């Protein structure tokens, strides 16, 4: 009962055969080798599986693969294709990650925020990643990374 779905992944047209109950996260990882979205909980609690669908950051563990027919999906692989983004550079500068496992999800959530709000307030940054768990950093350096003037282009 597999069905072929067509969509864009990181700017390229692609397709995959999925069962009606296949979850997007697993389908992206297993069928298309997009391994940057990770599984931390499989129930919407941790945000490590965050990808962008049509410009919105969503948890791919909560979405069925069949739902993305015709959509544009962006993962961290896509973000990293060209030049390293200012946010990513700033993450390096500020030590905004340790084990790095949460980083793909964090960066996707924050990319959505920065697309809509190039100069977010600290509260807005926190809000944007309030569903992304990080057990290592204590978050301070993540927020600092986004608030760096090189990222949040104030003045």
């Amino acid at each position: 009962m597999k069905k072929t779905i067509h969509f864009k992944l990181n700017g390229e047209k692609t397709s995959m055969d999925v069962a009606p109950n296949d979850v997007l996260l697993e389908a992206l990882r297993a069928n298309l080798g997009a391994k940057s979205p990770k599984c931390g909980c499989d129930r919407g609690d941790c945000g490590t599986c965050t990808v962008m669908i049509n410009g919105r950051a969503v948890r791919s563990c909560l979405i069925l693969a069949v739902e993305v027919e015709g959509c544009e999906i962006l993962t961290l692989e896509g973000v990293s294709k060209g030049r390293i983004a200012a946010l990513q550079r700033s993450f390096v500068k500020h030590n905004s990650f340790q084990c790095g496992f949460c980083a793909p999800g964090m960066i996707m959530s924050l990319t959505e925020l920065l697309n809509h709000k190039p100069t977010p307030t600290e509260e807005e940054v926190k809000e944007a990643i309030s569903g992304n768990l990080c057990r290592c950093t204590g978050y301070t350096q993540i927020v600092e990374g986004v608030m760096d003037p090189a990222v949040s282009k104030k003045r």
Partner: protein
Amino acid sequence: MNELKVVGHSSERVDSLEKITGAANYVDDLNFGPELLYAYLVESPCAHAEIRKINTAKAERVPGVVKVLTGKDFPLSFGLYMQDRYVLAQDRVRFVGEQVAAVVARDPKIAKRAAALVEVTYKELPPVLNQMDALKKDAPLLHPGLKAYKHVPWFFPKGDTNIAHWRKTRKGDTEKGFKQADFVFEDVYTVPRYAHCAIEVHGAVGLYDASGRLTVWTASQSPYTQRNVFAEALSPLGISHKDVRVITPYVGGGFGGKAGVSMEILGAAFATKFKGKPVKVMWNRAQEFYNTYQRQGVEAHLKVGMKRDGRITAVEHLLYWDAGAYVEYGANVVNAVGLSATGPYKVDNIKIDSLCIYTNLPPGGPYRGFGYSEFCFGMESHLTRIAKKLRMDPIEIRLKNAIKGGDTLAYGAHMNPNGLSKAIEEVSKEIGWGKKEQSSDPDKVIGKSFACFWKAPAMPPNASSSAFIKFNEDASLNIMVSGMEIGQGLLTSMAQIASEILTVPVSKIRVETPDTDRNPYEWQTVGSHVTWGCGNAVKKAAIDCREQILDLVHRTLHLERESLYLEDEAVKSRTKPGWELPLKNFVIPGIQAEDFTFKGGPIMGRGVFMPEFTSAISDPETSQGGHPNVHYTTGASGLTLEIDRRTGRMKVLKVVLAADVGKAINPDLIRGQVVGGMLQGLATVLYEDMRFDAKGRMLNPNFTDYKIPTVMDAPVETKTIIIEVPQPDGPYGARGVGEHTMIPAAPLIANAIEDALGVRITSMPITAEKVVAALKKEGKL
């Protein structure tokens, strides 16, 4: 010493590009091809039961199922310090969730579906769900075979009881000490179990090939220890160390949970049944909670005697640990605390009893802090309470008793040089000690608190580290160590150490994650010891390279050996200004001599470090005579807490932590440990809480019900203070700090609550609800 150019400075992480681009691979990201098999477990629904029968027939008939494995397939026990654990349960299960059987199939969904069809018949036995019940005379015995278990020589199991190990430390005469005291104070402190909650779950993939070679990919802090445990456990199958290869890609957080061997044994053992086909076992989040290691709970009875001038005269600490169903690693947590449960103070009269007790709850084990957070709750609460009774300043009491280099420790060895007093003074300044703060909101009060901490790495006396360094044609470097990058930044600090000596910039150094076939030995990445241990090995390997380089230049170009040195990726000579030979000219091709022959060849360095002064053997009744710990890292911390007196809701306004790291190899990485560790610690005090029902089932094995902090829960400000009193045997004087940053969190909160509201809470977690209950009980609300 010349001025340091790389060590002591912040440096971009060597794993940064991989991690921020999504290129970094974790174990679940590796590809294993179309032959990959998946295992799904059948788990015990009972906390304590005999296994009567296992019927696998229905599951085996499911198309796609390759095999169903049970305990009969693996009559093997294993364990790091005590062999009391099994690959799959044998005739008995001892906790809810224990692995009883496994379905191996070509598809993970099929494996899961078929696992539900395995029928296991149990005869339930009365469970023991609390360590105090386990000590009762009529308590059921969890491990009737305890006496026969293999264990390290520094454990003392009590056969025919549930006591798996009892560490006794005796120094001086506590009775006399209490008599000398002007004030003796006793109380009981309780700490529940906690979960590590690394965001990456555990996983293992094993491949046993036709030649008899076993390769296991794991998410682990301990590749070599795993190789050793796998090889020993599987030796009945004819597998030896040389046949086992453990590969550990990046790890998505460890915190002790990925130390030793827990579920990874399944990947290794299952693979042996399917020659040529890799077998994958991935934990889900629920299993991550109930079947890896949990931080053990404790009931701590503490008695401290003090003179009116604030000098401690005696400490008696009796700790009952809820160690769970298997204690192969957890017993060493109990042991470590049994040697150090005084805190960082000079005490002449000490009696510590630390008891490792079996219960029918998930296995206890290592967790960042290794038991020190747990006893620190009582000890540091106690000191502040006594200070109040004696009308003394709690900081003054700590300064008076602070341990100094050369002081005698509880077990008779001597304390290492340390900057504890300096840490206390700096924190006191930074937190504004003595200055009362007031909230602008009349319903909110503000309390301030103080706590010290210490911790030593808990390791076998012969735990060692080693490193290889090899040069490439362009004089870039590959460093190979088996210390694990678990987020702390080990790879970066190792690169910095090598860079300092070889003058090759960090950006030209690659440090590889472990592969036991390629990278040399490291005991484990635990105990905050790898900066020190592995750092020493890398430093030696770099010096080895440097000496080879200088020897070669000397013998080939006839330059005075003593005049030669390295600078800016070249050899230079003090007696020949202006002359230089770039490293890249010769580190692989060698140097051409006058007669056109070539001398030298690839430069490769090796370094080995073992602390040769340690010994774990001492008198079992007193712990006197050995030298079990290499050194302690000490420090102090202070906190400002705002509390809503109607609801008990708390907000950490500021927390300060000063740690004596000996030498900060990379100050930014240390700040990362402080900010992250402190939040992890605060969460264990304020809301994390593992709940079990009356049948021993964990009630909250997910992030919805077991809350870990989000960005909204971070303190308003976390301030890091680095103290540097060098560790004589550390690389550039460094000692570890990874675990210490969460240790003082609990007493900080408890002491701040008392400061603000006058109520004392002695059981963790300290939730808003508990604060309100305490206020009501005291008639303050």
